[in-house]
């Protein structure tokens, strides 16, 4: 009885088509956004904002991107890391060579370049499916990284090959610093949060609109979708383009607002796998799941590395045995792997499903079953 859809009557088409048609949902999302914008920067310290929330938000954007492609359109991709790199390198190029453009435009330009790369590497999806497509997208992973590390134009001919990101203000000459080491952590957080909110709302809108429905139709049965009049070319390539756009934005933000340089190692095949795991753990075809999955995959190792030494200190005081630091590090990996398997067994549909179960329980409150 706490949460209910029943009895909420809509009296106009506009209300029926609203992004969140139930006031309860709408208020909840609005209050989360307000909390993230106004309260979190006041409460959280530098460590939480800079090392936890910023990377989680950036990876969430990438996970939403891959979720559009894999979760909604059903096209398996292992190239997310490369599309992030495309965004980062091109955003760097635009920011350093077209200095009159404000940095958000540079990041969007990075996203658009990644979208273009996504379209090119999405073309095979018209002919091949499933694991075969995953292998084809793997080509983008290796080719794009190779391109960015071997064509010096992308790094402005720097000998070291790892260009550093300068401190940019929000609008060229005015506004707060939002990138680089001099920018305050609050400014960087809000900058990244702005992108995350806008992109998440846009993704949610697309998913329930015409384009999202065509993706899901293609995912569920491409031949049936084609017979119904959905053009696979348009649906698949738009999914690749938009997914890569999201990944590109995430890659650019990762370079500009988190690690302060454009380094190929940040976008290697492991990053692609990490994002794929986020989508699978979070829940395929769910925007909320992208956030939950990103938080789970990124934060669990950090939590273990913060928490395990404390546990072992306590155990050491009681039993007089203290495992060496490398054993603790390895235990961390084991627990991480174990928890992933545990979650997949008990909740194969991802963390987003837990949220749905929670909602159902609230609906039946006070007698949930």
């Amino acid at each position, binding site marked *: 009885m706490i949460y209910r859809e029943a009895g909420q009557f809509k009296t106009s088409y506009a209300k029926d088509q609203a992004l969140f048609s139930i006031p309860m949902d709408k208020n909840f999302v609005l209050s989360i956004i307000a909390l993230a914008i106004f309260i979190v920067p006041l409460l959280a310290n530098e460590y939480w904002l800079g*090392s936890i929330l910023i990377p989680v938000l950036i990876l969430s954007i990438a996970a939403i991107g891959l979720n559009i492609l894999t979760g909604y359109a059903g096209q398996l991709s292992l190239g997310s890391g490369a599309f992030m790199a495309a965004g980062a390198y091109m955003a760097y190029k635009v920011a350093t060579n077209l200095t009159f453009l404000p940095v958000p435009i540079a990041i969007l330009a990075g996203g658009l370049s990644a979208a273009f790369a996504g379209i090119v590497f999405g073309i095979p999806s018209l002919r091949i499916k499933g694991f075969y497509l995953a292998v084809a997208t793997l080509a983008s992973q290796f080719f794009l990284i190779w391109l960015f590390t071997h064509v010096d134009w992308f790094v402005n001919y*720097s000998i*070291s090959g790892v260009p550093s990101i300068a401190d940019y203000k929000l609008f060229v000459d005015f506004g707060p610093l939002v990138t680089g080491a001099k920018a305050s952590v609050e400014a960087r957080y809000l900058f990244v949060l702005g992108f995350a909110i806008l992109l998440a709302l846009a993704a949610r809108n697309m998913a329930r609109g015409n384009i999202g429905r065509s993706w899901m139709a293609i995912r569920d049965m491409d031949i049936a979708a084609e017979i119904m009049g959905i053009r696979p070319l348009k649906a698949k390539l738009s999914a690749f383009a938009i997914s890569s756009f999201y990944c590109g934005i995430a890659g650019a933000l990762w370079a500009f607002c988190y690690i302060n340089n454009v380094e190929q190692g940040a976008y290697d095949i492991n990053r692609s796998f990490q994002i794929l795991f986020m989508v699978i753990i979070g829940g395929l075809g769910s925007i909320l799941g992208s956030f939950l999955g990103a938080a789970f995959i990124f934060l669990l190792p950090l939590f273990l590395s913060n928490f395990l030494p404390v546990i072992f200190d306590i155990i050491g005081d009681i039993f007089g045995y203290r495992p060496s630091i490398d054993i603790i590090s390895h235990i961390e990996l084991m627990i991480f792997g174990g928890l992933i398997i545990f979650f997949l067994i*008990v909740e194969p549909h991802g963390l987003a499903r837990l949220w749905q179960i929670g909602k159902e329980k609230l609906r039946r409150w006070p007698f949930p079953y």
Partner: protein
Amino acid sequence: MNLKKIILSLATVAVAATTVSVGINVAMAGAAGEQKIPSLVYRTGAYAAGGVPLADGYADYYNMINERDGGVNGVKFVVTECETAYKTDRGVECYDRTKEGATVYSPWSTGISYALQDKLAEDKIPLLSMGYGRTAAADGSVFKYVFALPATYWNQATSIIQVIANENGGLDKLKGMNFAYIYLDHPYGKEPIPTLDILARKFGFTYDKYPVAPASMTDQKSTWLQIRKSKPDYAIMWGWGAMTPTAIKEAVNIRFDMTKFIGNWWAANESDLAPSGVKAKGYRAAAFHGVGDGYGIYADMKKYLYDAGKAAGDGSKAGTTFYNRGLVNSAYVVEAIKLAHKEFGIGVMTGDQVAWGLEHLDLKNDYIKSLGLNGLMPETKITCANHEGQNPAILIQEWTGDHYAITDEWIPAMTDITRPLIEAEAAAFAAEKGITPRECN
């Protein structure tokens, strides 16, 4: 349904525990009167074979100073390790977690040192990247808080060419020679190429490039078949991780003359050579510090740490190349803190004060000898403008079949060639970032 409950309660416990453990970490950071040394280590992951001895050596020297002298002038060190697994994002997180009151960072990773460099400058904490990281950082007028002592990649490349020249009777004998340059296809491996190009033009030798892709480090069959065909006079390698043992194994397979094979100082780990054992005898690697445990300091290390059971690791790494590298790294920091104590008074030094100490390091051989580090550490003089040291030089260590031995004296680098390059690259960096280089007089 029970499983669902378990998940929910696990999640609740996790959130609560994070809050508590972060709180504890912050509380531990507040311990006063001790010099805090955060140590970013990689004891796990693909590069652990290098990371473990580096971390052990780095921690052991501080702990030995604590045990033997009660710290520096009574100020003890606290080494806090943070596991990065060689990942840049984990390194950044570790930095944010440990930076409160931190003295100096040596992350042993090119990626992490690039990512931290600007943050450290902002927080006024020095980055001591010995033999890795941004080469241009040797220009202290642009990189105030980065130290690249006692030598950089570019100078190492010139020294290796010098070694080859010495062996063949002088620099003029290099004319017409052909080298194979085997490198990790990564910014790290490509960094010496501009220097090698200049040297090739100047001395009239040629060299062929053999990149090894980071994704397939252990797949070098075709590379070495090509090398067998082209029969280079020498092979020079910029290797890292699994690439090095693979290259050595393949070189042995094609019966390449191991005495003509020279690796850089990261292709020098004992565990890289061990699989090939005596077959790799004669392989040489560059070093910027001594190798083995035949140094004065090891008597104290044994007495206060290994015999007392206080070593950071299992103690098996003592005297290996990377262990000594970690040890020498801490020795530089300890010397910088001693200098800072003289300047700012005895107490816990801030990062800025340690940076001052590093910038005024002037270690003479007599003094190094009194520390028991004779042969481990070169004479070093750092200035405001030169963060690499006035006389960068390398040692050559040769694989005898089961261990490394130093074969030669210090071989000086051709700084007249590299210094203008370093200054030009630093100036380009400063221009792009909008930094005004400080005055160094």
